């Protein structure tokens, strides 16, 4: 937002407030309350993350609030963050993509295979695979008019199965030195393992976040995302090619998953059949915790970062506090519902399906 816009907004708020006071003559209470609720709703992600940090700091003290632990959090967040970005693009248009977890596993494996075949630059095969799955999602959803939920649910199953077939259940490991054991398939790429460590992984994430922010806030593409989530029919009547645009959106999401899979490969040091399993749920939760309404039309890159961070911190904090993994899952589920409950404006909802 430019300074000019900001001043305009402040001006308009002032004049709006004055006007309202004059008109309502002190009876403006419900309206003021609505406005305050709106402001609260806008800031839910920031409030949530602050509360969560304070909570775990209180429980675990310095074991949570240590440089070592925050370095760990900085390493844990990026993969989830990039998956959440993929979902942010799709959810802004009012659709959903639950195939990102399977796509992550598949693309990471393809990246490893690519490096096995073509050397260093072979990792691009993985990015390409991610985009390809995205395009496939988009084509089925947009051209065949099958809802995005059903389309990507089917792809979640299919892509995972394809991964099992392609890999034959075997993992590919990344190592920093030549491996002598011939029973293990491995690629030698020290640079990749370095990339998966702090601080490199953080720099990469910040760079991608910034680029996505530019795309989301400043480009025609980003604007169209929000408009599509607002009212598709109006766009169609205005002659905008919605069908083609939707395919682009899913392709862009696939690209994000491709990047996520690459980071995941660097981070975990292996391409496995299980990689990314259930991660679509974390990614959806991160987007929702970031205040993006799942019905589309609005969203924020920055708040999605906060959402992904919050989720990572909760998982991390619960582990440090000694909570068993199953209870940790339950806590995260409850957190998701609370976040969505606050971010929704229930007065505007007539029907819930």
């Amino acid at each position, binding site marked *: 937002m430019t300074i000019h816009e900001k001043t*305009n907004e402040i001006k308009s708020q002032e004049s709006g407030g004055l006007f309202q006071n004059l008109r309502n003559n002190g009876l403006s209470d419900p309206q003021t309350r609505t406005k305050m609720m709106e402001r609260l709703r806008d800031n839910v992600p920031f409030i949530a993350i602050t509360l969560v940090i304070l909570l775990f700091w209180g429980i675990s003290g310095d074991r949570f609030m240590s440089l070592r632990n925050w370095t760990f959090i900085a390493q844990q967040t990026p993969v989830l963050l990039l998956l959440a970005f993929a979902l942010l693009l799709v959810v802004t248009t009012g659709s959903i993509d639950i195939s990102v977890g399977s796509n992550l596993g598949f693309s990471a494996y393809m990246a490893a295979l690519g490096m096995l075949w073509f050397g260093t630059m072979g990792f691009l095969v993985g990015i390409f695979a991610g985009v390809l799955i995205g395009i496939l999602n988009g084509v089925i959803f947009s051209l065949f008019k099958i809802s995005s939920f059903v389309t990507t649910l089917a792809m979640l199953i299919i892509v995972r199965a394809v991964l099992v077939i392609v890999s034959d259940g075997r993992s590919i490991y990344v190592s920093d030195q030549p491996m002598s054991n011939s029973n293990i398939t491995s690629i030698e790429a020290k640079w990749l393992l370095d990339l998966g460590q702090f601080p490199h992984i953080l720099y990469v994430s910040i760079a991608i976040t910034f680029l996505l922010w530019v795309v989301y806030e400043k480009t025609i593409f980003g604007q169209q995302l*929000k*408009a599509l989530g607002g009212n598709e*029919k109006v766009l169609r*009547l*205005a*002659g905008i090619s919605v069908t083609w645009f939707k395919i682009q959106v899913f392709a862009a999401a696939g690209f994000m998953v491709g990047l996520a899979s690459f980071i995941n490969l660097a981070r975990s040091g292996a391409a496995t059949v299980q990689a990314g399993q259930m991660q679509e749920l974390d990614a959806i939760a991160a987007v929702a915790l970031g205040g993006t309404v799942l019905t589309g039309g609005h969203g924020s890159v920055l708040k999605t970062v906060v959402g992904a961070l919050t989720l990572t911190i909760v998982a991390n904090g619960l582990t440090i506090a000694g909570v068993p993994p199953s209870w940790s899952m339950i806590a995260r589920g409850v957190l998701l519902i609370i976040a969505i409950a606050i971010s929704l404006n229930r007065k505007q909802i007539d029907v819930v399906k």
Partner: protein
Amino acid sequence: MLDQQPILEVEDVSKSFGGVQALKSGSFKLSRGEVIAIIGANGAGKSSLIKIVAGVYKPDKGHITIKDTVIDPMHHNVGYMRQMGIEVVYQDLAIVPNMTAPYNLFLGRIPRKFGIFVDERKMRKKTEEVLAELKVKTVQSLSRPISEMSGGQQQSIAIGRAIAWGKEIVILDEPTAALGPNETKEVERVVHEIKDRGTAVILISHNLEQVFRLADRILVVHHGITSKEFQKTEVTIDELVKAITLG
């Protein structure tokens, strides 16, 4: 006379959806600076007729001529019609509610910077100009979603879009159905301005008094056929009602 040369000629167009024939035969002509009102009962085919002119539907048969150019069915789409200078204000589908006024004004024509970026300054400037031209003053902020504006202001943005780019023909589908009396008066004033500029206007309205205030000619659609046409000066409301109900 040169002015009487029709800018739009619709000849015997029809449109079916599945087994339902929404429009059996629609024909009419329109000249520069002329306001034609299309009236008819609900489901008579008014909407299909204007959506064919707007490029939303391809006609099954018949053809459309704009400025001496017969529209090739290959090109018959909204984008092409908008290039030809035809703009529509739809009753319920005029704006994207979560986007700003400038976005809605530039809908489908967002100015670009370096190919991919939105030229926000240009949009803002143009929006301010259009709002000034329409004498809309109370717009709170151009960076807020348009849904925060009043119904009249939202409609004026939609009409502003039509005026800004509808150089040849502006189609108004029930433009005042959801507006109060003052806002309605504003819209009617704008219609006169469009007309004075030499742009042709197609108006769909259920409000027959409004039709008499604005239209030069009145076209009646009955059971999918453009059955009757009147000059405003030679018809009474009673005759129109009769034409709407009986054809």
